[in-house]
């Protein structure tokens, strides 16, 4: 759980970095997207690892939740769980499921069409009407205010998930140190707020400049 979580945290940073390019330069975003979408190592080695990482994290998360719920068949009639643990730490399954539902929409919007164009239609050129299609496709997706709203809401759930998940992954791996753990916690909070907020800004940017 922790290892796959840390792996996804690293992936998220990479995803964010490329998305951020779409704000500053359409050409740069197109170049990098084309490289990511057509490079053999990324497509045939790293992409399957990522898919496995996502599926493993989701499956293990739900398996652990089911097992942990089974460890207390009789609930307390009166419980004050908030007195000793944060909402984020107690509701990872809720924020996780919300992110998972978002992934369904995100795959429908971007990943499935990409897979269709490349692997079913056999078009690896990345071109449409004589120019790269990546920036236009991305930009077009954020015209619909409902979709933008759903994306922004999902990033809030992602932030809540990361607020606990980042430092929790280190603890599960046994990486706890009097000197370094407070640093990990601070970096975790910064990451959990800055990255999802950045994704929100990018989505709003594409919506507003349309």
């Amino acid at each position, binding site marked *: 759980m922790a290892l796959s979580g840390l792996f996804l945290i690293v992936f998220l940073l990479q995803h964010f970095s490329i998305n951020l390019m779409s704000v500053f330069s359409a050409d740069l975003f197109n170049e990098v997207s084309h490289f990511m979408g057509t490079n053999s190592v990324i497509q045939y080695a790293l992409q399957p690892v990522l898919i496995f990482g996502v599926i493993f994290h989701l499956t293990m998360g739900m398996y652990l939740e089911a097992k942990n719920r089974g460890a207390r068949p009789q609930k307390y009639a009166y419980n004050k769980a908030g007195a000793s643990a944060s909402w984020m730490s107690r509701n990872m399954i809720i924020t996780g499921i919300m992110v998972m539902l978002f992934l369904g929409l995100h795959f429908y919007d971007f990943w499935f069409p990409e897979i269709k164009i490349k692997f079913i239609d056999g078009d690896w050129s990345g071109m449409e009407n004589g120019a790269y299609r990546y920036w236009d496709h991305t930009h077009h997706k954020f015209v619909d205010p409902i979709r933008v709203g759903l994306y922004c809401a999902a990033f809030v759930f992602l932030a809540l998930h990361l607020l606990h998940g980042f430092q929790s992954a280190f*603890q599960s791996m046994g990486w706890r140190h009097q000197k370094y753990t407070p640093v990990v916690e601070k970096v975790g909070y910064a990451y959990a707020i800055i990255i999802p907020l950045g994704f929100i800004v990018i989505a709003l940017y594409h919506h507003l400049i349309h």
Partner: protein
Amino acid sequence: MSEKGMNLTLKIWRQKDSKSKGKMETYPVTNISEHMSFLEMLDVLNEQLVEEGKEPVAFDHDCREGICGMCSLHINGEAHGPDRRVTTCQLHMRMFNDGDTIHIEPWRAKAFPVIKDLIVDRSAFDRIQHAGGFISVNTSGNTIDANAIPIEKEDADEAFNAATCIGCGACVASCKNASAMLFVGAKISQFSLLPQGQVEAKNRALNMVKQMDLEGFGNCTNTGACEVQCPKGISLDNIARMNRDFLSASVKK
């Protein structure tokens, strides 16, 4: 000079035995002194019930000074009640106000089945200890004095802190997953930090974690509730140390 006592409404879990279905029952108690301990307040209730010809409420207790780990009540939604770093026997009625309703339940966990009313069976902890919470010492007459082995002060202090765990089960009771990892982490740490504990170090982590899982405790998701509710302030450091020991023993297996 007499002082006015508190009048309270107690909502207590009553369960005849392990096979019966229990339920919350309501009892009023009057004239409770703020200087009483929580268990003394329950003693007053039980005297009242006995006088009324009713079955007194069964609850665990022994030393009543916070060192034996027998008392185990979930009070107003928190293990050992609203105070911090205290067991139920050290909780005083001054933490409550006149007219309060107090909810009292046993620890809730699959691995801690209710025996009667507020008493749960915590022998799962004993079986985890039996699986590896010990060191093998030669008692044939050649035993080396423990003090003859120099130990760094920081390690000795941390081992001692881990050893202050009284095994009350508040960690399990307060964890949303009913996980016993703070208890097991402490019992592993108190040996793994010392040279005397190195002989069985590898098997200790593997065997105790295996037994913990067999007993039906949940898995740690690092909410930190156990550390907050632990009457002895056992640190999450011990869970991280257990995770390290377990991971390293699994790799070397």
